[in-house]
């Protein structure tokens, strides 16, 4: 295929950005940083401007955003489909809960530990998954999602998991006697963790490793021909993806103060998927929008009509998808293109 005719417009934004020259890229980087700083400043100010419950909700939006970032790394950048991320979320949540409840570990340390255990689970799951074609991988992850709540309810494990009732956790106070409410502190804590994870993900994606990961998504045969170790990268990506979602799960456990098997069903896995698509597959900042969508829209739907809340949710979802078939990220790309044409 001739070189300049081979440009993809299917929602994968990175390819298009890389075809621009260095000067344009630098300009984009400066604009990007400016936007990030503004958003960050607003984010830090928010918990002091709104009420306690809204702060809690906003914290959960960020938690979901981190989980969706994890899914995006696997599906958006590596092309592996997962309907089972609720499982890694649950692993992270229960790890944190058990560590805090049974071993008195401080909530801060539960995050990396939950992440590492989730990483292991993801890595181990990724190994046999290598042999499965996409549709079968979807089925396997689906089985994982369906199995998770049942697994958590198993009687032999009740001593650890608390069975059907789950585990209750004590909400931490702000450290060093800072004049912050618990909600405000957890919000800022989550914001910090989320931002760090976002930067880390950005760095991975733009590194050599990231390019290898994306090469596997775009053309696995060519990637292999160029020496990319498919097995290693695919399973590692699974692990990293699970790490992110596991950390999110741990944060969720702390913020909600509670873990129970029925919080981690297939519905959650589907929600992550929807959130990723709404935000833009392969566009990390979109994860925040995705998180906001899956937290707020079901509530909005229920206010519209109790009996038909599912239908309202579905209709809202459809309308947003029609306006932005490639998610918020795709919409942004189209707007940038449009204004680019205008200026010519």
């Amino acid at each position, binding site marked *: 295929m001739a070189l300049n005719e081979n440009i993809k417009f*299917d*929602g994968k934004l990175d390819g298009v950005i890389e075809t621009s020259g260095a000067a344009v890229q630098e300009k984009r980087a400066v604009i990007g940083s400016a936007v990030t700083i503004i958003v960050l400043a607003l984010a830090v100010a928010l918990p002091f401007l709104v009420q306690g419950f809204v702060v809690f909700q906003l914290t959960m939006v960020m938690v979901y955003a981190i989980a969706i970032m994890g899914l995006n790394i696997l*599906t958006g950048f590596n092309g592996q489909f997962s309907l089972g991320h609720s499982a890694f979320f649950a692993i992270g949540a229960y790890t944190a809960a058990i560590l805090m409840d049974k071993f008195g570990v401080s909530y801060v340390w539960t995050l990396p530990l939950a992440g590492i255990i989730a990483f292991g689970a993801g890595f181990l799951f990724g190994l*046999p998954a290598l*042999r*499965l*074609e996409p*549709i*079968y991988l979807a*089925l*396997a992850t*689906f*089985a*994982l999602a*369906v*199995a998770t709540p*049942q*697994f958590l*309810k*198993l009687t*032999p494990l009740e001593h650890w998991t608390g069975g059907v009732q789950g585990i209750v956790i004590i909400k931490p106070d702000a450290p060093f006697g800072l004049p912050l409410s618990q909600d405000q502190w957890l919000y800022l804590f989550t914001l910090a963790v989320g931002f760090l994870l976002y930067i880390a993900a950005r760095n991975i994606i733009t590194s050599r490793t990231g390019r290898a990961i994306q090469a596997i998504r775009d053309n696995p*045969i060519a990637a292999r021909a160029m020496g990319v170790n498919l097995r290693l990268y695919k399973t590692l990506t699974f692990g990293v993806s699970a790490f992110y979602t596991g950390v999110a799960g741990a944060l969720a456990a702390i913020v909600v103060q509670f873990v129970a098997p029925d919080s981690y069903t297939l519905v959650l896995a*589907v929600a992550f*998927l*929807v959130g*990723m*698509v*709404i935000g833009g*597959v392969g566009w990390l900042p979109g994860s925040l929008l995705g998180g906001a969508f899956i937290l707020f829209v079901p509530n909005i739907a229920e206010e519209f009509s109790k*009996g*038909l*809340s*599912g*239908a*309202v*949710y*579905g*209709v809202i*979802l*459809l309308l947003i*998808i*029609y306006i932005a*078939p*490639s998610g918020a990220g795709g919409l942004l790309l189209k707007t940038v293109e449009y204004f680019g044409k205008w200026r010519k």
Partner: protein
Amino acid sequence: MELFLQLVLSGIANGAIYACVALAIVMIYQAIHHLNFAQGEMAMFSTFIAWQLMQWGMPFWAAFPLTIILSFIGGVVIERVVIKPIENAPVLTHVVVFIALFTIINSMAGFIWDFTIKPFPTPFGTAPVLGGGLLSAHQAGMIAVTLIMLVMLFVFFRYTSTGLAMRAAAANPASARLVGIRVGWMTALGWGMASAIGSVAGMLIAPVVFLEPNMMLTILLYGFAGAVLGGLTSPGGAVLGGVIVGIVENLAGAYIPVVGAELKLPIALLLIIAVLVVKPSGLMGRRTVQRV
């Protein structure tokens, strides 16, 4: 040993249900190369329509074909109105649209007809076909209808021009356009057929599992597992896969101690995954080789 035999036989009987759904899924996949899990909800909704028609006094053998026709039209309409706007969007967007369809249809069914279980009549009567309660008339009827549909669809796709055009449109829409096939309408036709097949499956299954908005989800999953196990390109494999899934489900439930009723589904699925790791294109699927 007796327990084993009983489990296997009742597994086969259940398997007939899954086989029916698996067949629908494979046929749909042949037509439109997509796996739409909202199809189960559409089948459920169609079954409710049949039920409603009978509540209004229509006899079964009038409601049955009318429901099939209405389902066909419904499928075409949904494709033209809901799916066409995103026809060029990436796969994941399609998945999300299917999810949206799922929630809409499920919610509407619950709203219109509520969530209480309703009995659904069987047209085959209740006399047993095989002695000792091994095979009831309805189960025999289910198997017969499934096989008839299988044959009809096979003939359609293999020997008719429209069937060939549909397969081409699903496999390679760009090339199909180049030979003059109106791909959009082929897809709409495919959806109509899928919807019609689904309605038949729903009306056959409802007498056994009772009619309620959530009746199709688990069955759809088992059916999907059966279709995948058999190899998505093989209708015969779909039927075989469905039956095997039924048997495995029963055996796993009885013989694996940890497995209670809740874990039956994931265990069955995971066993199927194990098969696929060994034989990636399913039991009877064709290994499709592509020149790079």
